[in-house]
């Protein structure tokens, strides 16, 4: 009896519902890679559809594909495909779903993209506003004068 039940659970399918309503059917072991989903399942065993309110359908699709395919080669190619906005949204998704492997891969990719760039470029890329006062700004420029030279052209 127990064997039958475990066999059934390993091929059990789960439905994930993205924030824009798109549904994804995934195997239980794939879904379990997302620790947030795992916590959901632990809480209520019989659940069949799990809502993922913070993640768009297109990003959830990418995340699921990552979990299925992840290995070193795939990771290396993976990060090159996405633009900065997508990378950040994927990182937020990976963070919410609590997938450490994907999170690390995306963080490295983001770090690579801001390597050796000027603060203006970094601000643009991350969509941050400069909230330093003029004095603070001047102080930082002076202290980090050496860092501003030799950066890549934006």
């Amino acid at each position, binding site marked *: 009896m127990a064997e039958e039940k475990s066999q059934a659970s390993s091929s059990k399918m789960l439905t994930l519902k993205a*924030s*824009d309503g798109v549904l994804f059917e995934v195997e239980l072991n794939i879904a379990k890679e997302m620790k947030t989903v795992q916590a959901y399942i632990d809480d209520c065993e019989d659940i069949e559809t799990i809502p993922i309110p*913070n*993640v*768009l359908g297109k990003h959830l699709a990418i995340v699921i594909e990552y979990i299925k395919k992840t290995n070193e080669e795939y990771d290396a190619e993976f990060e090159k495909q996405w633009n900065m*906005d997508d990378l*950040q*949204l994927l*990182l*937020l998704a990976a*963070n*919410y779903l609590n997938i450490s492997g994907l*999170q*690390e891969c995306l*963080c*490295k990719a*983001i*770090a*690579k993209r*801001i*390597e*050796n*760039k*000027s*603060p203006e470029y*970094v*601000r643009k890329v*991350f*969509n*941050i*506003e*400069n*909230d*330093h006062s003029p004095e*603070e*700004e001047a102080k*930082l*420029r002076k*202290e*980090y*004068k*050496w*860092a*501003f*030279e*030799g*950066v890549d052209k934006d």
Partner: protein
Amino acid sequence: MVILISTIGKTITTDEEGGAATISAIHPDIIQTHILTCLDGPSLASASSTCSQLNNLSSNEHLWNKICHSTWPSTNTTRVRHVISTFPNTSRSFFSDSFSTVTANTLHHRHHHHRTNLETTPEILSAVDLFHRKRLILSKVVETETVSGWFRCSPFRIDILDPKDSVETSMEYPRNDEECKNLEEELRLSWIVIDPRGKRAVNVSSGKPVSVHRHWLTGDVHVKFATVLHGGEKGSATEVTVCSLLVTLGGEMQVREVCFQVEDMDGINLNGRDSLGILQKALEGGRKRLRSEKEGKERFVEFMKRKIERKERKLRSERRLDMLCVGLAALSVAAFSTLFLS
């Protein structure tokens, strides 16, 4: 659970198609431990200049500590770690001080005359790292006192290795000029002079060698690194001085000697007192990143040219003086003889 940070700039809404993402929606721990740790020194400085949230995250001591140790392994010793911890912004200011070279006109202080103040620098530390093809081959810290009469009056010289010591390397002996040129590209030296009391540091090495050549007699390989410092008294021999670092390798390419001396335009090695004065000015001076890797060598080549010009000028003025003396002598002989004859 994701904690949304109070946002700076726009907020994130994932249910809008094409909503702009902002880094501030990501948990700061993640930014710090996963993104910022991947960055090198200048990139981290860039990131911290963007906004106050990233500035706070980037100021984390651990981040800069890690960068300092990986750039200069010799800074991972107890004494140096302790000294760095006393710096105004600890590892971050140490990195800032040591990463780039001193600006060319660092010694030019119009506003105050600088006198070598031995009391303010009773000792200096030298943190030295030598790399070949990016692999570390030598890493050492040496402490040098600067108060004794012996130090002040004798020619300034700091040796990293004891005379009998040598460090094995797996380098190949350069058999011709081309291989010497290759060594120029493959070797890197950083020599950071640390002033524990003044809480400042400066890198006196040019990074890449300014010359590599084999000694005609002993066959030793001499690798020279140098930083040129301007702004001394105009017209004097110390108008421009050079911090000269020499690495000597024996026939088996074992490192026999790594030493630091300060030379003036007449080729004379300055004594301890004067060298300390130069170093103090360099420690206080500005920092600038070299425009290119070759700039260190270009500056040194220019220094050598000026040295030769100065020597020629001196020779010419001596010759003129000689001619004058000869002329005067001839004149006096002529005057004498006319006196006698008349």
